[in-house]
């Protein structure tokens, strides 16, 4: 299965998907030291976003969240790539300054945690190769 989206920040990467239907607030919602989701009641609470292709509909919360993505990258705890339905300022700027490949306008309905994805952000494509 191959899906077409829109490039927010380029890069080519292969990795395992971590999918949520809920929005993510990086500032206050993700621990920049460990990469664990710490937002109370979030469906990913307690899970690590480090090294995953993180799939969520859209970002939310404080604009300082862009710096949280940068900090995650510096600590080796950033996601490999980010896939959104609708990217917004916080996530877009965070991906650019942390150099994390990012796509949006991707239909998220068929993506599941554990699938292996190949991202070509330059082309805006995403391929599910396994799972």
């Amino acid at each position, binding site marked *: 299965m191959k899906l077409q989206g*829109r490039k*927010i*920040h380029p890069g080519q990467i292969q990795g395992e998907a971590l999918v949520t239907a809920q929005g993510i607030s990086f500032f206050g919602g993700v621990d*920049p030291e460990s990469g664990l989701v710490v937002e109370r009641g979030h469906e990913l609470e307690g899970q690590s976003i480090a090294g995953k292709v993180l799939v969520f509909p859209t970002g939310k919360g404080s*604009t*300082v969240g*862009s*710096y*949280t993505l*940068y*900090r995650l990258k*510096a600590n080796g705890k950033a996601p490999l790539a980010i896939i959104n339905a609708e*990217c*917004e*300022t*916080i996530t*877009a*700027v965070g991906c*650019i*300054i942390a150099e994390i490949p990012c796509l*949006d306008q991707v239909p998220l309905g068929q993506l599941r945690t554990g699938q292996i994805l190949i991202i070509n952000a330059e082309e805006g494509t995403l391929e599910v190769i396994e799972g």
Partner: protein
Amino acid sequence: MELTQEEREILDGVQGRSARKAMEILVALGTIYGAQGMLPVSSAQIAGVSYDNLGEAGLAFLDEMAAGGGRAQVLATLNPAGMDVENWQALGISPEFAAQQQRVIAAFARMDIITTCTCTPYLAGNLPHFGEHIAWAESSAVCFANSVLGARSNREGGPSALAAALTGRTPAYGYHLDETRQPDLLVEVRTRMEGTHAFGALGKAIGDRLQASGKKVPYLRGIEQASLEELKALCASLATYGGTALFHMQGITPEAGQVRQPTDAISIRQADLKQAIESLNDADPDEVDFVSLGCPHLSLREVRRLAELLQGRQVRGEFWITTARPIKQMADRMGYTQVIEASGARFAADTCCVVAPIKGRFHAMATDSAKACYYAASKNRFKTLFKPFDEIVLGALKP
């Protein structure tokens, strides 16, 4: 998005890696929000200055942007820092925090950004005029610039305002365009309005209604006059509670006569203001151990009034006055500072109660600012007492 030759060159790194990174940010935002191209901006106001909010990663990013040759192409000023840059010891800031905060400010200075550290840049030499395109962060100042001055800015975050400063550009979308500046909710104000406290309460009352209705740009009718200080308070409160970047006020703001009056309407009456005020008061006057005036930063007129009220009196506890450094310098010259500090109250220039590292340090805060009440409760876990300016000062005096 259509880019000019020069913009494409910046994107290719011709002007260095920081300008390239800045242009990447602007192009991404322009793409997301459907901008046709870039607009030149004449001014930037950059948030994300307090080390309390930036952390080590934010500082590392700013150092990298300075090292990569980033230099402001337009007049660019800074939001409040996490401390009084010159007098942090007296305010209980740790030397470790102060050292990191100084590094943040030094990184901005290397990029030719003017280290004003104020949320009221329009009172400190960064004053755009009608119709100018600007890229400002600091939600209260964005609302003031759009509404009161008639300049044009989106609500930028720290990195996007920095990107605009380093390239002199911003993507052409949102409040830069005529159509987005049209009001979508008529607000009939059916009560007499006076003072920063009342205007802050009005911002809370309208802001809550905007949030509930999904409306963005209110058109206010029924206010006969409003001072600089009252408009400053309204802007801060509307931005905090309504996410508002722009309002129009009949007879007072410059675009009010040019826009279409909306058909959807609400009324704000005395009872609505009273409800807004009550919702921001959960502290008993006896519990207050922290008085904070200056959210947004105090004007010279407010500092002068404070000196009148404090002349020959003593305050009971911790009492902070937050303002811009240039205002403090004028207060020094006029002798207001001497009068105020003789009372035991303290200036905290360059900073504010929202961004200073004071979480949990106090129990209950008294203020005339509706915005300060929001952050005191959410960020710092303080109870709040929300009263008019003069009452706050008189309530803080020793008998």
